């Protein structure tokens, strides 16, 4: 299925109240869903900052969470669309493989850490280490991101409509970074690169997936990537190690 912020047609709604039922039952029920399940829309009430809400899903369903979640919401997600109507704690969407996560608030540290695929959209700000060690995910942050974001980022895209904190893209591999606002500083081996037509097209595709194509001027973004000078261990680079 194509990843998009547009609502997906739901065939039914299952409501799960975490104030009344344990998290284990929620995740257990979600894990039992098959690819052809009719229970395609789940609404989770009263998350109250619980950790690992909707972690480990592997079915094309929508889970909408009304309230703030704790650490690792939708961790290792596959296929599912998880929407958080609130703020998200550390590691939202960590190691996501595919699917879609939408945080309609702010996200704490390490959002999308090590994730291999899928789309993570954060309406607010993301804290430090956003996209750390990312391995293919697309992350769109409508606000700003904290320091050490995209540290050792290997693949995927990180798009930031606001500002980036210090040491952006430190020890970067092949991930592509687009920032519209200011960058406090670049990390080791991260450099600004020319924004060519293919990069504008790539950025446009990510903005479209996030549902904000046309709302921002693509020409305002700058592209950052790896200088690839640290790809081989060498004594000349010792000051960077």
């Amino acid at each position, binding site marked *: 299925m194509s990843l998009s912020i547009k609502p997906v047609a739901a065939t039914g709604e299952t409501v799960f109240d975490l104030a009344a039922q344990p*998290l*284990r039952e929620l*995740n*257990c029920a979600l*894990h039992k869903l098959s690819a052809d399940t009719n229970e395609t829309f789940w609404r989770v009430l009263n998350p109250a900052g619980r*950790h*690992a809400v909707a*972690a*480990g899903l*592997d079915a094309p369903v929508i889970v909408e969470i009304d309230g703030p979640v*704790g*650490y*690792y919401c939708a*961790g*290792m997600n*596959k296929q599912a669309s998880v929407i958080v109507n609130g703020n998200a704690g*550390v*590691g939202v969407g*960590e*190691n996501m*493989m595919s699917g879609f996560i939408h945080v309609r608030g702010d996200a704490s*540290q*390490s959002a999308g*850490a*090590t994730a*291999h695929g899928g789309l993570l959209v954060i309406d607010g700000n993301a804290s430090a*280490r956003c996209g*750390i*060690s990312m*391995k*293919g995910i697309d992350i769109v942050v409508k606000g700003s991101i904290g320091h050490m974001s995209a*540290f*050792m980022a*290997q*693949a995927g895209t990180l798009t930031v409509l606001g500002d980036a904190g210090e040491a952006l893209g430190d*020890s970067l*591999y*092949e991930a592509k970074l687009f920032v519209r606002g200011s960058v406090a500083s670049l990390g080791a081996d991260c450099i600004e690169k020319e924004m060519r037509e293919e990069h504008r097209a790539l950025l446009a595709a990510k903005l479209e997936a996030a549902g904000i194509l046309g709302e921002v001027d693509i020409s305002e973004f700058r592209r950052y990537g790896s200088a690839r000078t640290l*790809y*081989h*261990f060498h*004594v000349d680079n*010792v000051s960077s190690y």
Partner: protein
Amino acid sequence: MTDHNNIPRTTPRASATFDEYTLSEIRRAAATGIYDIRGGGAKRRVPHFDDLLFLGASMSRYPLEGYREKCSTEVVLGTRFAKKPIELKIPITIAGMSFGSLSANAKEALGRGASAMGTSTTTGDGGMTNEERGHSTQLVYQYLPSRYGMNPDDLKRADAIEVVVGQGAKPGGGGMLLGQKITERVAAMRTLPVGIDQRSACRHPDWTGPDDLEIKIEELREITDWEKPIYVKVGAARPYYDTALAVKSGADVVVVDGMQGGTAATQEIFIEHVGIPTLAAVRQAVKALQDLGMHRKVQLVVSGGIRNGADVAKALALGADAVAIGTAALVALGDNDPRYAAEYEALGSKAGAYDDWHEGRDPAGITTQDPALMARLDPVAAGRRLANYLAVLTLECQTIARACGKSHVHNLEPEDLVALTIEAAAMANVPLAGTDWIPGRNAGL
């Protein structure tokens, strides 16, 4: 008058401080400007299990008959929270070693040998291969800072999960796999370009400290529906506190790896000067479990320099539930085999001392991704050698346990041991042989 031509000469004396190896390292450093990187664990002499002895049976202890009376060896790991604990037939497991640092044939051989003896193998940095899953009846999936190859499907098809905080060869260090070993397959598994030097982070990207780790473990349990035992592996540094904090974090099993434990590659200076010996770590880890009332409830696996059944028995007697072997397992497969002596010499080393595993030119075909070298290792034959070796370790351990009158190897206890040196007596918290003196017994840890 003195006859200067006939003055007796003193024998040329090398410095104990500036010994032959030290001089060669200074010359190497002066020529290159970069530190030495190698594989393996600490090579220096440190207090070890050799410094302990079993007392055996005597007037007050009754031995069991060898070849007749049963001495059990099975061990269950992960009884605290996991719905499906790991049940091993022997208390000896295979430590984490990655595909990438090792060849696919070597990983297959480890799986074959371990499975034949009813024990587990462990993945490493770089993810799980189908070969090792297929050939390992019990496979522990490592959860490392790099998260290379980490995915929920492999997490769910693992038999246990090992959260790696550190390893004995380099507590506090990350990893480096040089470009020679980053083939297309290795690169694809790690989502990296082919041929670049691959760094493994030293810290996890999404948690810091025991409070976060508790939440991380909860997430891993939720993803795997609380089925899998979760190990926490630490390098031996502050084993009392690290073990206690691992228990606090919710671990089912704690793995403590001493400084003799091997690594695929890191700085020589790191291996030899950071971390503490295995012997010094075991009793502290056990004491932490005992103080928390969790000994035998949270299982303890000890690794780093285990070579024979006596080492296994001593680790168990000090309170471990099982041991893990890495370097010895590779030697059983064929690492450093004298039949490749000429080739080791051509690489500037010699059979028995070769440790440039990171360079990918291993004549034995184990620590390499070179197809021609890899083909030298027959995984079936190598797996059989490992199974034989594991069988010998088990028989040796049983021999000692029977001599101490134990019907299960877990019944071995510190009271069966004495130490040959004051250092070992203090570290192992057992009496110096021939005395009742345990140095530091009343001085705490």
